[in-house]
């Protein structure tokens, strides 16, 4: 699943080359000025080899191919380890290239591929799975808890506010929430409570797993439909096998 997700997210970058070229607001020639060592000297020249335009698109294309092979063949063996490192390093280069435009899905892809690459190279697959499960529990808890602390999320106005935007929202959902304020409030409370309570899944009885994992997938699918955040589905779904592993093998 992580392979499919990385393929989609990488193809999305390749589909809009004008968003990374030298005259875009995401130009490496500007962004490299963020740090002296990326702007000049041999380090600057070295990173420019991979991050300038159009070489950066080649890096993304290589990542796409590596992720596609991973999706088809799995992460096993020396080839699997190599491909995981290619994807991981390529995702890390994105972090170096720009502080802007990163998504939560990119972060999750990097955590998953990085942990799997380490395990495929040095061993410790079980630890990698525990790490991924712990990170995804941390991500849901952090997201939910940060919202619980804010009154606008508890009373639903933040949820409506996001839905009203053209960037992340949905006109139909916004109109419905605006005319059903009580439902909006309780929907917001249910969402942030479920997010904050996600770590409890790791303690849940194994027979509840299909329901809980199904609820998680449904949550991300709805977000993809309503908000257009399609890559989150693949990113978070790729962590669920680790969650299932932890629940089924915990002491």
């Amino acid at each position, binding site marked *: 699943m992580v392979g499919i997700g990385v393929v989609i997210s990488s193809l999305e970058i390749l589909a809009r080359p004008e968003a990374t070229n030298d005259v875009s607001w995401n130009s490496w020639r500007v962004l490299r000025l963020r740090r002296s060592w990326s702007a000049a000297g041999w380090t600057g020249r070295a990173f420019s080899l991979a991050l300038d335009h159009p070489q950066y698109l080649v890096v993304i294309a290589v990542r796409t191919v590596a992720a596609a092979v991973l999706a088809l063949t799995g992460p096993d063996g020396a080839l699997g380890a190599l491909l995981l490192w290619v994807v991981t390093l390529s995702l890390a280069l994105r972090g170096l290239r*720009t502080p802007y*435009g990163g*998504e939560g899905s990119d972060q999750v892809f990097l955590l998953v591929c990085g942990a799997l690459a380490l395990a495929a190279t*040095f061993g*410790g697959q079980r630890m990698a799975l525990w790490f991924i499960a712990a990170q995804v529990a941390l991500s849901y808890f952090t997201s939910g808890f940060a*919202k619980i602390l804010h009154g606008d999320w508890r009373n639903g106005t933040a949820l409506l506010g996001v839905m*009203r935007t053209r960037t992340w929202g*949905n006109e139909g959902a916004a109109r419905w929430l605006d005319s059903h304020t009580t439902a909006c409030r309780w929907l917001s409370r249910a969402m942030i409570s479920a997010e904050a309570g996600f770590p409890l899944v790791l303690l849940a009885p194994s027979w509840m797993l299909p329901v809980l994992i199904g609820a998680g997938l449904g949550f991300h699918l709805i977000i993809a439909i309503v908000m257009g955040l*399609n890559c989150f589905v693949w990113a978070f779904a790729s962590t669920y096998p680790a969650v299932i592993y932890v629940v089924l093998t915990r002491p």
Partner: protein
Amino acid sequence: MGTVIVAAVLAVWFGLSAACQLTVPWGERPLDRLRARDVFGLIPNFKFFAPQPVQHDFHLLMRTVVDGEHGPWSQVAGPPERCWWHVVWNPDRRAFKILSDVMAVAYRFDEGKPRAVQTSLPYLAILNHITDAASQDPSASHVQFVLAISHGVLSTEEPSVVYKSDLHSLGERDDSSERNSHHRDRGRNRGRHLFA
């Protein structure tokens, strides 16, 4: 031995990830230094849309000056239209997210410190794009941009300007007959010379 190394790396990675999700007055400065040194983005930020989500849309507009006259404002970038296939394929979201993040920083520009603003990374990033877009008009001598916000589909509130740039010269140009045929390339160079 390899397993021990993996365990140590993953434990440190998770520990730093958890620490950096905290917002605590006594630990912000060390955490900020840590985040600043995370050049590869290995430490995640999991506060998706929290605590205070962006509840408006960003718009980037520009106008050129031709023969001393200001032209009309035109939108360079705004939120992309939502389509049903975005549930599986949404490249415009990713492209616009970059500009949204740039503008979210630019949103907090301190107009009392114009020099600091004009040498900031978001300003340069926007100016880089704007100068290229303005160069499509060979008769334009200057360009100016505006960052604006609108308030969503149900709002009756008028869009508002949050930052208006100074006029920026597009540079010297000659009147040779080659001007029109090469204006595109020269425009690119003008946009790039600041940063090359």
